[in-house]
């Protein structure tokens, strides 16, 4: 018998009931994150990848709501938990890191306040001990002289340092799962590299599982074990990260990879995906990508199922790239 995965999401649907209509931001999404593994959740903005992350955290705000599906965290369905039960898990067993480090720390509270309150929210310990834990966490993410930095306000840190503080807060209770929502997008490339290395090391040593939400394939390539590509609220391709990036099945994944500059294709023009992400409000039936797809045919007017074209390789497409694979390097 295999070990229970840290997270198993089954047929998740999160919809937003706006005045203009129902936005199906997440529509039938399933994936699994085993213990100590990293899942890269990839997609353009508006594809539903962040909403998926917030659904796992139980932080979907009205008019949004999880309408269907299960979120099994170590076998326990988060979607069924009460607010208070969910709160006890949040920041404790499941933590989250946000995109913009300039915005995630409260500007009028000192760093120590914001760290100590996180410790005390889940454990009854003396404040001195909570402070010591906060200091150690800052040291762990590579912040020099953590004792003094605790007394600073967020605006006294640079963006990269703030993200380190946010990561330190996420690590305070050594969570089983961290949902990272584009945590390096707003940072310089060098800082991005440092933080990625840091996170990888931490995940490996603590056995923490990660959902790494990003639109940047190169980040996923270096970090993730598995990858799930989202488009218009649905997963269109899923599988081992190396396999998917080397031999994408779905034309969308194919297009995404083609639009990233690569040394292997020097001199060739970058291929762009024509057209724009469709509005989730006016989604027509059938494959959402077909208006932009070079391989689209008549039958694409019917929504394809997520089909296992090869062992461990899922794609939601009637006409995947199954032919021998020179074109996708």
């Amino acid at each position, binding site marked *: 018998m295999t070990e229970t995965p840290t997270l198993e999401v089954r047929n998740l649907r999160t919809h937003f009931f706006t005045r203009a209509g129902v936005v199906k931001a997440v529509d039938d999404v399933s994936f699994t994150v085993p213990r100590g593994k990293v899942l890269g959740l990839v997609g353009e903005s508006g594809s539903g990848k962040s909403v998926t992350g917030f659904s796992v*955290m139980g*932080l979907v705000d009205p008019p949004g709501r999880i309408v269907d599906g299960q979120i099994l965290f170590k076998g326990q369905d988060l979607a069924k938990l009460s*607010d208070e039960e969910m*709160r*006890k*898990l*949040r*920041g*404790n067993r499941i*933590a*989250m890191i*946000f*995109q*913009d480090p300039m*915005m*995630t*720390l*409260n*500007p*009028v*509270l000192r760093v120590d306040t*914001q760290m100590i*309150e*996180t410790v005390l*929210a*889940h454990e009854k310990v003396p404040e001195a001990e909570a402070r010591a834990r906060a200091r150690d966490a800052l040291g762990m993410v590579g912040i020099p002289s953590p004792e003094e930095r605790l007394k600073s*306000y967020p*605006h*006294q840190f640079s963006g990269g340092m703030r993200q380190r503080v*946010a990561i330190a*807060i996420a690590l305070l209770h050594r969570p089983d799962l961290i949902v990272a929502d584009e945590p390096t997008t707003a940072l310089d490339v060098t800082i991005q590299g440092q933080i990625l290395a840091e996170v990888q090391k931490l995940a490996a040593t603590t056995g923490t599982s990660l959902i790494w939400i990003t639109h940047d394939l190169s980040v996923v390539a270096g970090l993730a074990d598995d990858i799930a590509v989202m488009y218009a609220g649905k997963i269109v391709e899923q599988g081992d990260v190396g396999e998917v990036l080397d031999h994408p099945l779905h034309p969308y994944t194919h297009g995404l990879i083609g639009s990233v500059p690569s040394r292997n294709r020097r001199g060739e023009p970058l291929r762009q995906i024509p057209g724009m992400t469709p509005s989730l409000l006016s989604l027509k039936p059938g494959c959402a990508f077909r208006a932009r797809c070079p391989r689209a045919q008549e039958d694409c007017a019917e929504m394809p199922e997520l089909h296992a074209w090869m062992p461990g390789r899922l794609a939601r497409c009637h006409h995947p790239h199954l032919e021998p694979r020179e074109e996708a390097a």
Partner: protein
Amino acid sequence: MSVYLLRRLIQALGVVFAMSVIVFIGVYAIGDPVEILISPDADQIERERAVRALGLDLPLWQQYLVFLGKALRGDLGNSFVFNEPALQLILQRMPATLELAIAATFGAVLIGLPLGLYAGLRPNSVGSKAIMAGSILGFSLPTFWVGLMLIMVFAVQLGWLPSTGRGDTAEFLGLQWSFLTLDGLSHLLMPALNLALFKISLVIRLTRAGVRETMLMDYVKFARAKGLSPFRVTFVHVFKNILIPVVTVTGLEFGSTIAFSVVTESIFAWPGMGKLIIDSINVLDRPVIVAYLMIIVLLFITINLIVDLTYSLLDPRVRLEGK
């Protein structure tokens, strides 16, 4: 910080100077000072002697210097009506006005903040819609009419509260205060509420807008993601952020509360300086008018200065820039 303070002080002095010119021109150049300062029963010879004695035959700029010199020594002339130094008259009545304004300001925050918080946290509930409709009413209701209605309902119809006056006072810090006695408190309640009405609406709107804006911030979502209780998220993370604009505006509005107490004091016969100034304008007691205006300008500038400093204490970002 000290450079900033110095610059603000110099600015403040500039405003005081400008206002003294305006008030001087208003009273001594637009109006006929002879008519104002000399008894109408005086005959021609007496008038001319008075004109010379008062220096009214001098050029205007010299007259201003004389006025300024006297003003700096605290001499703003004698009231025609009371025949007492005008400045002294104003200062005697100032504590009553201050008490009323402070009570109204505290009332506005105590009532407005919770209501605004509720309206911001549950923007679609019936309660919050009622609160917002009420706040439009609070902006629209003429203060003086509300005062009359309060008297009609609580003093005349129900007989719960006294309609006018300040009631019994007790001494504290060498001044007489109403809020220290039960009778005084019952006299204070209606005028303070009346004066607070507009500010309650203001605080509600500010708080609600602040809460709604802050709730959308990433740091609030992050605070929730940390597993903090809703109570702590609301009352530490959100509240501390909205406190800054609310404190600033209420502070700045304190000056206008003092100015608007003119109306409330007239209705409730509250013996403050607002009532004095209306009576003085009605009988053209200009030295008192001048004294009132100069005092209130000083008061305003002091308030603005204090609010600025408090603001920089509350917001760590501003604090740093000031250094």
